[in-house]
């Protein structure tokens, strides 16, 4: 057979096939990597969107004066003495009465049987409304009350009729009732604002748990991180980049910073526990301590990116300033630093976004557990009172036994990722807007 450049021989064909294969491996690797990203994000959205909807019952409750205000004097102190235990039967009776009026047939006879449908928090909600406005007593008021976690799960498909057989909190009869109530529009899912603004709830009330307090905890920590790490990081970078002589001490500092950036975050947690809590006796679980630990963790990141942006300012700027008689300090602070500022801010924001998602060190300083229960009542309380943070709250929910909390954990992740995304977007926009090429 005649050989020609136009007719590839077997060896060339083999080599070309190998070339195509090799290229395909690369494309497949990228496809796998991107598909992991897609799978991860869709899993989060599918599992987490449920947390943004919650099942409510609209029940007209007759606020019986005989039960709520025995003296009849409408004295606020007497009314406040009636605990939530006094309200729960009223709600249950009201729900049963509503069933009768809608002529929904059910084998459940007693008002106490309604307990499985209503969240334990409903009584507190009604009580708060009554204490806020005592004239409501004696009237029939329609409340939108939280349904119990199982009812919510049934509407979202988490609780199934097969599973209910082994569940001692709710029976199939209740589910029949829920179906009927749903048809009558008494039971309905609505947007769950309380999940974004609310506080954590006890193990048995997943329907009430929210991220709001933990978000405030994260916010307080980030404030500490920003206030401490930006000035310290910028000052350290200026010294290392502009002033430091080349000697052993500065070499040591440089090696240190690059190694600190790779120290596992949990080790920073141990440092925080030993230095801030055991040695300095700062309060445990406080966002202030969390912020201090995260500051130490974020500093190397900020220093590295700040040095890069200082380095990218051309030497001619410094030379020109020195040439017209500025001191070195003036050249740096009047000319180099302002020009490097966009880059520094971008690096800082990215460092803070990293700190925002960090969980492990927070576990060691006690920002996990049933801590994010109350809104801070002031600035110092926001920094010093026990609180959780967004990622630690997600971890806390993931550990709890009730599967209803898993939905909350996924939902929490959606909130966390949205916050991270917006923070990073700010960084990208800053860079786009102010970036300068020399």
């Amino acid at each position, binding site marked *: 057979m005649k050989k020609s450049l136009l007719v590839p021989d077997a060896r060339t064909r083999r080599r070309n096939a190998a070339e195509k294969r090799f290229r395909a491996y690369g494309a497949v690797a990228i496809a796998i990597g991107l598909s992991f990203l897609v799978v991860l994000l869709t899993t989060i959205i599918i599992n987490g969107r449920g947390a943004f909807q919650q099942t409510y019952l609209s029940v007209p409750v007759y606020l019986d004066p005989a039960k709520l205000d025995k003296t009849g004097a409408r004295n606020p102190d007497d009314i406040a003495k009636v605990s939530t235990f006094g309200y729960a039967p009223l709600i249950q009776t009201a729900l049963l009465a509503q069933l009768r009026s809608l002529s929904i047939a059910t084998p459940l006879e007693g008002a106490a049987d309604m307990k499985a449908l209503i969240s334990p928090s409903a009584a507190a909600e009604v009580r708060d409304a009554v204490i806020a406005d005592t004239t409501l007593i004696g009237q029939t008021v329609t409340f939108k009350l939280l349904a119990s976690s199982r009812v919510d799960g049934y509407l979202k498909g988490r609780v199934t009729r097969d599973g209910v057989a082994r569940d001692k909190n709710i029976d199939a009869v209740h589910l029949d009732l829920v179906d009927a109530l749903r048809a009558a529009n008494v039971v309905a899912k609505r947007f769950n604002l309380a999940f974004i603004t609310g506080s954590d709830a006890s193990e048995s009330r997943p329907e009430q748990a929210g991220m709001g307090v933990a978000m405030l905890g994260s916010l307080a920590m980030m404030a500490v991180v920003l206030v401490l790490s930006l000035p310290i990081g910028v000052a350290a970078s200026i010294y290392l980049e502009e002033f430091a002589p080349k000697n052993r001490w500065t070499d040591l500092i440089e090696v240190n910073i690059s190694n600190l950036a790779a120290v596992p975050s949990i080790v920073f947690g141990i440092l925080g526990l030993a230095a801030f809590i055991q040695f300095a006796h700062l309060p445990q679980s406080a966002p202030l301590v969390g912020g201090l630990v995260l500051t130490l963790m974020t500093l190397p990141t900020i220093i590295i990116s700040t040095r890069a942006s200082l380095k990218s300012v051309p030497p001619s700027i410094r030379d020109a300033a020195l040439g017209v008689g500025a001191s070195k300090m003036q050249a740096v602070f009047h000319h180099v630093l302002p020009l490097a500022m966009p880059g520094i801010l971008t690096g800082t924001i990215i460092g803070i976004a990293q700190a925002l998602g960090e969980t492990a060190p927070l576990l060691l300083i006690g920002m996990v557990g049933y801590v994010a229960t109350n809104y801070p009542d002031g600035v110092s309380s926001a920094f010093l009172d026990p609180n959780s943070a967004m990622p630690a709250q997600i971890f806390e929910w993931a550990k709890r036994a009730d599967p209803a909390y898993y939905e909350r954990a996924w939902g929490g992740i959606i909130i*966390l990722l949205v916050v991270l995304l917006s923070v990073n977007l700010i960084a990208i926009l800053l860079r786009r807007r102010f970036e300068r090429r020399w």
Partner: protein
Amino acid sequence: MSLTLIALTLIAFGIAAYAAGRARAMASAGGDSRALHSLPRYYGTYAAMMALVPAALLLALWLAMQPMVLGNAASRLIVAPDEQGLILSDVRRVADGLDVAVAEGAISENGAQALAADGTIRDLLAQVGAPLASDVTPEVLNAAQAYRRMDAYGMRLMGIAVLAVALAGLALAWSRTDKDLRARNSVEAGMRALLIIAASIATLTTLGIIASLALSTVEFFRIYPAADFFFGTTWSPSFGGGSELGVLPLLWGTLYISLIALLVAVPIGLFAAIYLSEYASPRLRSVIKPLLEVLAGIPTIVYGLFALLTVGPLLLRLFGPGGLGWMQADTAVMTAGLVMGIMLIPFVSSLSDDIMGGVPQTLRDGSYGLGATKSETIRQVVLPAALPGIVGAVLLAASRAIGETMIVVLGAGAAARLGMNPFDAMTTVTAKIVSQLTGDADFASPEALVAFALGMTLFVITLGLNVIALWVVRRYREQYD
């Protein structure tokens, strides 16, 4: 004299010093700022600096020392020596509580001093939000009252001392200020000192880490033999005593999970890097690289939840009792390893891509000139040239895998086990640090102290890997520069 008042006074003082210094310099130059050595504002800053810096240092020092001195003095009033620490903290709590009560107006200052040691104090303190565990004994109350008196006295003394120092500093600056004073040089020296302090904080952090780990580790080895820790093959802590705390099963779990993670991340990451750096158009690369890097930006708690609730159950369906029967529960080495591998892909791909981009084009052109195809060039020229850097990238990913916490806490299980089956639950060094230090552990027990020894082990391993990786990458860079 309260702290806020002192701070406010100092700030006002600083502003006054600035104005005074500036005015004196201008006066000495006869109102013509051209006759001055430095710009007028530097004279002001100089005076403010001289007034505030020594005063602020004294304030910080005093605030750090006063509780210790007072604690010593108060402990002399306590008779029972064995429970001194506990009683002392009671004393502090009562004293602080009384301060709060006075500040909130629940009781007058004279009333607070005249309190008798009965139930009223506890009720009073509970009322202002400082609840006590038990009723106050006369001894504690006595010590607390003494503590409060000394505290108030100390604060007054501190205020006077700080203001005196500030005044002396200002006087010194005032006497020195004149038109030939090199004010700018002094101010800049002060700023430079600040910059150096900031730069030293990173070093202090490292020292802090080492100190906090080393002190407790030494204490741990004093009550638990080091040989048993490093070579023990059983990990069974029990807070009742009689724990076996061998690190080997934890190290094995750590390494096994990291190995699986690298088996996932290295091939995918490396091929992705090859495609990005050698085949992809710049436009495609600028889209795909950041997308892959999103994987590294997602918080690890998200991966942990993904492992626990998605990957674990999925693997259990495939390999569990219903499928191949190798797996018993959703938490396993495989679960954590796979998910961690996903997280590490961008660590390998981005760094390798940068390093392959640094291989000089002339090497590739030479290879093409000899008739090699693109893939032959990559395999036989680019990869060998970039190999040290790629090894560095893989080592960095490994150090990341070893130090990773949330994925293994949620995905790997809690059983410390030396086994080969990747579908068994195992646990890691990081997961055990978390479990030993969270909860109400007594920090002096070996079961809690072991966490510091584990932290030290982890710190040394990751630091070693990191130092090697940086060294390899740096050596490689020098090759072509």
